[in-house]
């Protein structure tokens, strides 16, 4: 089945018009020595057969419809209202392309404009786009944009060690070809004050995550002080955030962020084994002309009617393209459409309710787990800076290796937490480390110190999707597996 409408007589008529005998005559420019390779691919299947096969394949997975899930760490199990799927299922949206011709693309253009507006409202920023692949690449692009804002004069990027490890890895890949120095996370015990001490005239930006990778919320006064210090140094403050947390907590725009990035998946996009996701990207108006990606702007047509166009947008492909600092085009339009539909569906009260459900359920779970002998909450009342608040994720110290605990949970129909001993394993960072060494592996790249307080720790995530019954089942299972 190749979805081709041509009959043999259609083909014959077209060949005759072209003036060639066979279709092979159209490929004479291809070197004969390599023309017509024999491709070894499986035999074609009918629609019925492929669906049967794929359904069987999908059922080999342990999915979240059949398991309680307490796994987060950058990809989140949130509720997606039915209306969202029906909106992005309109094929007028999903079979269109980048709205290059605005007269016949107002649907996509207006929907993305509305998404931009809602992301600005959510983050407290003035400009947002829908161009980025995911949270990790948004963060890397924000770092490059900060350098560009300094006209290339500043070459130091400070990144907090509590930023998602895969985001930090992506940032390092993105800066491989440049002379930029990425610092701050080589010591995994660094807190905001330590990062502040690294600020200098060469610093383009300081990047934090809030809530951080371990689920913790930074304190309001410390954020204000941090923003002040960053701005005094002439650098930009980049904040990587969880959009669901903004249903409840102060948006980064209010505590001095210059660029806000984040993973947009929690807004109406399914987990999908890691993609496609959506990179949130918003900034202050001062920097909009340095923003990588494409923006939709409002204008009027020749009759004075409101309409929308791609604007400030041709840099990466046309004007001075060899001097571009980003090659980003439009990318995740349909994911942004889902996020926009989600934000509008949830609205003012719904998003707050989702965030509240996450917060209260996570705290209930944390408190229950803390009471189980052998388990602890090591970051609460930690040795530096006192205990921080958390949103929907929290670190649990375990009496046994997390891998063993998760194995036991799986047998009880529960997908457990994220094994922090694996944080900097080859899977996430791309460095080759000895798999037998357990928690001492929490090292960044080749240098850096251990994070001993996270030895044998896992990161649990609780969302509005987890019922009290599920949490109680998790607690009962953990009680059983404790030695």
């Amino acid at each position, binding site marked *: 089945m190749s979805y081709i409408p041509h009959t043999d007589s259609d083909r014959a008529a077209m060949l005759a018009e072209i003036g060639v005998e066979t279709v092979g005559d159209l490929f004479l420019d291809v070197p004969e020595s390599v023309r017509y390779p024999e491709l070894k691919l499986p035999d074609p299947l009918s629609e019925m057969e492929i669906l049967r096969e794929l359904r069987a*394949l999908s059922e080999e997975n342990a999915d979240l419809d059949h398991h309680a899930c307490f796994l987060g760490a950058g990809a989140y199990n949130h509720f997606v209202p039915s209306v969202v799927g029906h909106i992005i299922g309109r094929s007028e949206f999903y079979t269109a392309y980048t709205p290059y011709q605005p007269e016949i693309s107002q649907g996509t253009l207006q929907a993305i404009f509305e998404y931009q507006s809602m992301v600005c409202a959510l983050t407290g920023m003035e400009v947002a786009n829908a161009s980025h692949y995911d949270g990790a690449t948004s963060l890397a692009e924000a770092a490059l944009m900060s350098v560009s804002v300094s006209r290339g004069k500043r070459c130091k990027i400070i990144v907090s060690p509590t930023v998602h490890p895969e985001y930090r890895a992506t940032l390092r890949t993105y800066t491989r070809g440049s002379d930029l120095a990425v610092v701050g996370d080589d010591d995994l015990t660094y807190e905001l004050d330590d990062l502040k001490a690294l600020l200098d005239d060469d610093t383009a930006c300081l990047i934090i995550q809030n809530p951080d990778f371990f689920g913790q919320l930074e304190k309001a006064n410390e954020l204000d002080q941090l923003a002040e210090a960053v701005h005094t140094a002439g650098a930009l403050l980049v904040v990587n955030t969880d959009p669901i947390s903004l249903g409840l907590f102060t948006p980064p725009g209010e505590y001095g962020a210059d660029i806000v990035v984040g993973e947009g998946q929690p807004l109406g996009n399914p987990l999908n084994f890691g993609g496609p996701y959506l990179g949130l990207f918003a900034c202050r108006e001062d920097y909009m002309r340095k923003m990588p990606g494409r923006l939709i702007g409002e204008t009027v047509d020749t009759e004075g009617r409101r309409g929308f166009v791609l604007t400030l947008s041709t840099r990466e492909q046309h004007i001075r393209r060899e001097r571009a600092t980003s090659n980003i085009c439009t990318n995740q339009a349909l994911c942004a459409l889902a996020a926009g539909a989600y934000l509008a569906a949830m609205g003012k009260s719904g998003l707050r309710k989702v965030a509240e459900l996450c917060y209260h359920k996570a705290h209930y779970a944390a408190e229950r787990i803390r009471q189980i002998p052998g388990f602890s909450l090591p970051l609460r009342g930690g040795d530096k800076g006192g205990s921080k608040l958390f949103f929907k994720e929290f670190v649990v110290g375990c009496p046994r290796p997390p891998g063993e605990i998760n194995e036991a949970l799986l047998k009880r129909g529960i997908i457990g937490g994220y094994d922090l001993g694996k944080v900097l394993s080859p899977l996430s960072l791309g460095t080759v480390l000895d798999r037998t060494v357990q928690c001492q592996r929490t090292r960044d790249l080749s240098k850096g110190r251990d994070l001993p307080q996270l030895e044998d720790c896992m990161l649990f995530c609780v969302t509005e999707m987890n019922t009290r019954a599920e949490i109680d089942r998790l607690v009962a299972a953990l009680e059983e597996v404790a030695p």
Partner: protein
Amino acid sequence: MTESLIPVLSPAEVFEISSPGRRAVFLPELDVPKAELPEELLREDLPLPEVSEGDLMRHYVHLSQLNHAVDTGFYPLGSCTMKYNPKVNEEAAKLPGFTRTHPYQDHCTVQGNLKLMYELQEYLKEIGGFAGVSLQPAAGAHGEFTGILMMRAYHEERGDTKRTKVLIPDSAHGTNPASSAMSGYQAVEIKSDERGNVDLEELRAHCDDTVVGLMLTNPNTLGLFEEQVLEVAELVHGCGGLMFGDGANMNSIMGIARPGELGIDVMMFNLHKTFSTPHGGGGPGSGPVGASERLARYLPGPIVVKDEKCDCHKEKTSEVSETSEVYACYHLEMPEASIGRVKAFYGNFGVFIKAYTYVRMLGAEGLKQVSEDAVLAANYLLVRLKKVYPLPYDRTCMHEFVLSGPLPQAPDVHTVDIAKRLMDYGFHPPTVYFPLIVPEALMIEPTETESKETLDAFAEAMLKIAEEAQENPDLLHKAPHTTPVTRLDEVRAARHPRLRWKPS
């Protein structure tokens, strides 16, 4: 003019159908004790709209009706391969066993996902003639950037650090120069010769020990197959450089030629173009990268590896049958000298499902048929249109071709006018003003999924527009006339940016 019953003109924005107290979603009541909320961290206001579900659905359906899409009409947008998107792809990608899996689940609990990814890697290796494939890059431009970083890693590992130039033919894709600049290299443009090929003399003059490599779009953006592709590769390899292939135009050569056998060391695929996963209004796409033997070790990762010895049996869940064939084990692994990861997780998995479905339904013969018919359709349109429109490079084309807009008989009419007038005939315009080497370019890619009747209707519209250009140029200057909005003031949008909704 009669009033339309559908309110398609200046539709309200979502903020304008909002009213305090309306809701579209009702969430369950809290079933655990309340924890104390930190007052000092709470936001004061959350200025999101408040709408009912019915109003919301109607809002978006109205918006959707303002779009031209492959499912509403012919979309010959050059270099974008706007082919029909099979509906089975969408059904497959919605299976909850796929969508409801978390990327950090233990590999033993996601063997179905990993098997699908592994097989797709294998198919792309076979189709492209490569030794390795990473599915991680999220889009074509992301794949380009990835490929250049791999070239950098290769040279650096060899201590060959004086290479700084990336050669880019003027017929290459638009993002190529930016991708090389992002990787810290200098882009050097190589001119085309009069047949639209890379000018070998000019290439020879640039080939020295400072060349990182060459970024070859083949077929190029003129829609022409590089006649001396083997010589180009030989020259570049001869001076120690590498060949990057831009795979955006793969729709014309599946089963016809394998880039790996044309001397390409690293290439990105565009699953949203060639493999029929939809374009989504501008994403999500997917830009897997294939690499030759010597570059495969630098691929970004993790990628999926097949295990002969499976370590999963002990962790088997009740859902998985012991005899199942997928139980041969797959896991994720970083390639030996990987450039690292280029994004979080493993790539756009939801898109992989659609591309996998497509390849399995077509098989080798079907894919070859796709390329043959894509090239047939393009040549048919070319022959019909070149009678009236100037064709700067008059050769047999591949899946697309490039006309030059200004008609000798109507010098005041520009490509933009022809493009806008096409909308009145119900067609999406071709790609316009690109490639830059053709003045007022009209880049037309019909794809294999359009019937001869559609191709004929398009050709006739183009020919009619050529007549109109001569007889009534003003009709074209003011086009389109039948669309929800007329020409929009782009200068105003750029000079006075309004980038978010504000209450008026």
